[in-house]
């Protein structure tokens, strides 16, 4: 196993040593977090602990990526349709 893979595996095992939200709080805040990200606001300052949770929870991370992608795709569709 390469050093990078090893660090990745150890990272999954050890997590991050900083305060983080739980899955339920993450879900509650996810929509606001993604919209702040999309307009270039400091989402991490607005919702402390959410980024750390996304780093530690693969399921919530996937759902964050999906919501970002869905909104981005929707924006493109609107542009193509001439709404923006």
């Amino acid at each position, binding site marked *: *196993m*390469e*050093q*990078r893979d*090893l*660090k990745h*595996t*150890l*990272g*999954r*095992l*050890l*997590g991050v*040593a900083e305060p*983080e939200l*739980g*899955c*339920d709080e993450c*879900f509650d*805040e*996810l*929509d*606001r977090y*993604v*919209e702040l990200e999309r307009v270039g606001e400091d989402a991490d300052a607005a919702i402390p602990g959410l980024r750390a949770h996304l780093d*530690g*929870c*693969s*399921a919530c991370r*996937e*759902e964050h990526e*999906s*919501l970002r*992608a*869905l*909104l981005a*795709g929707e924006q493109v569709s609107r542009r193509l349709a001439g709404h923006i």
Partner: protein
Amino acid sequence: MHADRKTNEAAAVESTQFDPDSREWLASLRGDEAVRDEAVARLHALLLRAARFEVARRRPTLPYLRGDELDDIALEAADDALMSVLAKLEDFRGASRFTTWVYKFGLLEAAVKLRKRAWQGRELPLEPDTWNLFASAGLDPDTAAEQRELLAAVQTAIVDALTPHQRRVLVALALNGVPIDVLAERLSTTRGALYKTLHDARAKLREHLERFGLSLESLEG
């Protein structure tokens, strides 16, 4: 009447806090029967869009599922998400657009269903039988020795510092890649409770390693 006053106060707050589109959604969903039915149908369509989006994203990882099975999963996810959204409508505070808030329910339901479908009938690996993954390759002797020390300490900490439940959860989620929703279902618990267990197990491991002067940051590269 007290209830009317409360409704009026809520409407006043919403009129200043919510964007026009979100206000329209809420008003329609609280409207008379015909208006509400039409809004619920639009809401379902929105959730189905989110669920199909999630299905499409995950489709390459689910080659054994036929198109109609995936359509059914998306529809079930939209149906379940609709129930969740309607039950939690009063929780919407306008922190995002209503449609963004709604989408996350559709995405979540579809993701959970697809994770469960992917692991349906599979035995969950709950024991650390994949330590051989840790065998290093192509490293210089000093780095290899450093790795061996850290890995041995991690393995010892997993056995010595964690409770059996923490060990099973950590190994399944962090080492063996079992999705948290799948493990939660098999152990009859929730995603939130399992993540708390994972979080506590990780903290114990870090604390154990720090006692020996070891940390992830001590690995170079």
